[in-house]
């Protein structure tokens, strides 16, 4: 297997009961590797993309893939401005989200699909090449709010639907925290200055207490989500870290953080502290 570049996105999932702990990793050669955290080996390699670049992977929300038809997979066509929403498992396209003519948003760089509460309409947050974050209503197919928070392309974002607060990172030296008010308008809360420029991945832990960033400075940083207090710098990789992801294990001590880097390695961390 020739791997030109690996580990762009990592998703820790708990979705396959018999494996109990899993991790997905995509690579630019178009294979999705499912890693078993028990054996530390690749369980399966899914080849669904004709060996072309895979840009993003999303696991289903439920524990079982087949029983969660309400969640959609969001593919991004490279170098296009559209976002397509597909319904699974029928794989029919629900809608295509396309910015209005004249709006120079550029390419969507990162996405986050979420629901305010169970049963309410799904919303999509998308970070664009021009540095703006856009809130889409998936059902209506229109822009609800738009916020320009970065000068550079938004490399990644994550959103906490409980606090209605999100965070995004770009190639700049800042993290931007924004919130969504009742009128469904996005507004910048504050910005957080970083030591080194360039954030390629952000993930908020499912319990919404800490977040991790993947930095171009080869380091993973852990912050408290509330005040963005720096908690730890994880130094392992020898190249740009592409992405970070938390597992959704039920018991807290089992929860893991995984990070993928350009150095061809995935590091798995236990960041739980016994307090």
């Amino acid at each position, binding site marked *: 297997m020739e791997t030109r570049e690996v580990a762009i996105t990592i998703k820790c999932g708990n979705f396959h009961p018999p494996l109990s702990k899993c991790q997905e990793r995509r690579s630019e050669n178009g294979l999705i590797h499912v890693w078993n955290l*028990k054996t*530390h080996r690749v369980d399966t390699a899914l080849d669904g993309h004709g060996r072309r670049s895979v840009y993003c992977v999303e696991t289903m929300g439920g524990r079982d893939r087949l029983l969660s038809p309400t969640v959609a997979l969001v593919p991004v066509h490279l170098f296009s401005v559209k976002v397509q929403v597909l319904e699974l498992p029928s794989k029919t396209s629900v809608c295509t989200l396309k910015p209005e003519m004249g709006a120079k948003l550029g390419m969507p760089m990162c996405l986050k699909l979420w629901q305010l509460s169970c049963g309410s309409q799904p919303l999509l947050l998308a970070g664009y090449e021009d540095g703006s974050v856009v809130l889409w209503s998936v059902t209506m197919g229109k822009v609800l709010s738009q916020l320009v928070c970065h000068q550079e392309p938004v490399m990644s974002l994550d959103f906490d639907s409980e606090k209605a607060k999100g965070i995004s990172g770009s190639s700049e030296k800042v993290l931007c925290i924004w919130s969504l008010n009742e009128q469904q308008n996005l507004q910048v809360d504050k910005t957080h200055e970083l030591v080194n420029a360039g954030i390629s991945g952000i993930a908020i832990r499912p319990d919404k207490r800490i977040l991790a960033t993947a930095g171009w400075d080869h380091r993973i940083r852990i912050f408290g989500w509330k005040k963005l207090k720096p908690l730890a710098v994880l130094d*392992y990789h020898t190249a740009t870290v592409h992405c970070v992801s938390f597992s959704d294990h039920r018991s807290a001590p089992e929860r893991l953080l995984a990070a993928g880097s350009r150095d061809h390695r995935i590091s798995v961390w236990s960041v739980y502290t016994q307090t």
Partner: protein
Amino acid sequence: MAVFDTPQAAFGALRPACVQLTRAQTVENVRRLQAHLGAVSGAALQELQEYVLFPLRFGLRVPGPKQERLVQSLVQCISSVLAATCVRKRELLRELFSELCTCLAPPAGSGTPAPLSEELKLAVIQALHTLLHSAYGDVILALYQPAALPLLGFAVSLLLGLAEQERAKQIKISALECLQVLVLQCDCQEHRHLDEDEAQQCGDLFASFLPGISIALSRVITGDIKQGHKTTISAIRLFYLLIGLVMADAQLAKIPKSKEKLPVEQSRISELMVHRGPDWSKSTAEKLSLLLHKVVESSSIHPHWKVRLELVELVHHLMRNCSQSLVDSFSHLLKALVGLVNDENSQVQNRCHEVLRGIAEQRLVAHNRALADVLSENLHSLSTALPRLMNSQDDTGKVSTLSLLLGYLKLLGPKINMVLTSVSHLQRLSRALVQVLELDVTDVKIVEERRWGPPGSLQHRGRPHRKYFRFFTEEKVFQLLQQVCRVLGYYGNLYLLVDHFMGLYRESGLYRKQAAMVLNELLTGAAGLGVDVLQEREVPPSVDDLRGSITSILDEYTDQANWYLVTGTDAEGASPEPSEPRLGLAARVGAPSSSVLLPSPEPPGTTRAMNSNIWQICIQLEGIGCFATVLGREFRLLLLSALYPVLEKAGDRTLLVSETALATLADVCEACGYDSVQRLINENSDYLVNGISLNLRQLAHQPHASQVLDTMLRHSDASLLPLVEDVIQDVLSALDQSYNNQASTFLRVLHSVMTALVQWFGMPSAEEHQQRWTDRGQSGARSQGQHEVTVTKQEVERFFLDYVSQKQIAEGDLPDTGEEEADEVPSLAQAEPNNCDTDGEAALPSHAQLARDVMERCLHLLSDGSLRVRLKVLDVLELCVTVLHPHGNHLLPMAHRVWPALVTRLISDDPLAVLRAFKVLCTLAQTCGDFLRQRFSKDVLPKLTSSLLSQAPASARAGPVYSHTLAFKLQLAVLQGLGSLCERLDMGESDLNKVADACLIYLSARQPVKLQEAAQSVFLHLLQVDPDSTWLFLSEVWCPERHEPPHGSLRPVRLRGMGRPRNELTHNVLLLLHRLRLQEGTAPGTTSQQASPC
């Protein structure tokens, strides 16, 4: 004599004798009757039975004192009549029985047996025996009516008296046998089988005699050994048969609550009768228990094996028939049985095993709570005494004690858990095991034995080191202990046991090794491996259970505090110089991973403590091997955590540890289904690489990580390289960050990396390369030596022309180039393909790339402060050069960079370093010939030659010890290497002369022989390079013959060596000249004169 078949005829024949006997009772008459009896057939005699018996009985009944001989003959005669006939009348039986008994009756009033002759007693006993056998059908039961009780009792006491008090063996045995028949337990098959009621009745009857018989018998059994084993055997047999009958569970169960009322006329007799109610059986069982204890004690150590065999039968019989009534005695019985399992006699052993298996199969223990209680009580008291016994007993005693323990456990079987759940039982047992298993840790050799060099040089390979225990030396004891643990593991609750022993393991360093040993065996037993049991367990533990336990034990074993223990004073890198061991030790004790963290029984750093640590590691390693065997392929899941530590220990410097780790590795390999260790490592290299790369990031773990890599490389092949390349780069970058403190650790890894690379890639390409160099050398313009040999006149002419044209070129006078190129092209064409595919920048294979990276690190370390490091670096460097051989384009720049540091090593360093550096130089010279020439002649050669010259007088004077000195080794190495160096580097004439000058003195006969030989080799090489000048040089020293010029016009040759007297150099010079001539002689058409310069 005729045989009388009919009663009439018989009567006719017998009558006179009978009549005569009735008239006069003499021995003579009895004899006559007996003689006649012999001629009468059985059937006829049956008819006449009473008639014939009459005079005989009459003889016995006659009042007044009788002659003993007469009585004896009468009894014998009766006996012979009875043997041929059977008694059909109850009356007759009873009368005969009482009459015979009376013969032996003691005189009235005295309690002692009658002072009768032994022959008479024997005769009576035999007659009784015969009588009881001749009773027909139901008739025998006449004796066993309550009414006959007094008579029976009389007979019994008589016989017992005989058995107990007689001295003659024969009588004793006969009496016992007779008694056995009397209680209806005869061994022969002729008897009618009693039905249940009858048996019950007899049981009631015999119950009255039980106390008497059993006491008397127990006395017989425990009596003097001189009475012979047969007596004892018979007594034992009678003993258990009777008890088995009277105390039989089946009979006791049917006894009514209250005593039966007998008819009034028998009231006196009924007083004699015993009611076998619960009270009676309880008190009897208590008394019997005492007797049984005595019997068992004495006969279990009886020297004759048949007695012990009979004892086994006793236990068997009683266990089968009286498992409820005699439950209190079972502790003694089982003890005896279990103790006899390991009897020296195989028959006893086998029978014992059979009986035990029988007991286990009947689930006697499982279904009988009382019995289980007895066993667990025994176990408890035994385990309490065990440590004391182990201290005091000798090895044989230990074997028997332990086999007893093992027997109890086996008998308890699944009921073991009942014992284990009691805290005090479990604690005592475990303490006992742990104490017994204490190792002897005084052996210094264990600590001292080091693993040096590659694994191939191991001498003790394949022989597992024996453990030495403090309390025993015999292997058998250890095997028994092993079995004990395995049986525990087999039946016991695994979680409970593992928890308990893990507790002991953690509790104190004193117990750690033993607890680990026990744990290993427990798990082995739990999987049913190598365990010998009497009954299958109901539910074997599931694989998940096993894996759960094993995982937790593994975690504990490989925990830092238990895995990284101080095993030696010179743990890698701790003491840089051998002259400072104390400092090194102190440094180690303070190290974070040392055992000071633990409550160690010994002060850390002593030999005992280290020995103990070594054993602990070994036991834990063995444990991992066991666990792998237990889990089989399932162990693959645990390789993630287990493989790395094992490999780490395989690279340990302590011989025992590394050997044990290798054995473990082999076990794991087999269990997990890999063909070889190599495949095991290759297929799991991802786990190992992960561990290495993680541990490299922590300074304290770097040595271990490098050990793992070291072991991986040692045991694998080239296919591993792509898998570990990554991690080798990690090692290099880790080295980059810590040149100062960890250098020697990393150098070990680099050394093994390079050794592996040389082994995997170096050899073939090196040969090929050498080939290439020789090719090039031959075709090159400068290397004329080879050509010169085959010169013809034309060639001399051509040489001259060439020389002229070269000279012109050198002076800048370039001729027409066309011809030149034509000459050069073939040689270039030959060299090019090689250059292209091996030396191209992009095509550098990974191993060469690695070698280059390593070499780069060596550059920095070559001038390290520590001699040890420098030596190691030089070794690594040499390997790097070997690997880089085929890649000249890469090697040359590196060589260029290495050169200054290398020269320093060669010129001004410790002799050891010089020696190694010189080796590197030789290797380097093989590759970068002309590249080094200039530098060598400028930087190194002067120093080498001057040192050779200055050392020569010393070695010439030196004695035999000199060959062990460093100076000698250096001289030798330089002399041995110099020749080939000169040849490879293609040295210029002036340099060659320098070499020749320096080496000449070593041709002296006064030098040590080895140096002479080495110096010869230098000259032989010089002969290859430039035969002419060498010839001249040698001839100047000593010339054996005159050289006549071929033509008068030429001047006569005058050499300085001509006509000199023989001196110390003569011998070797002559030898060399001879070799030269031989060499030239092989080339046709050449003479030395022709080649010699004018």
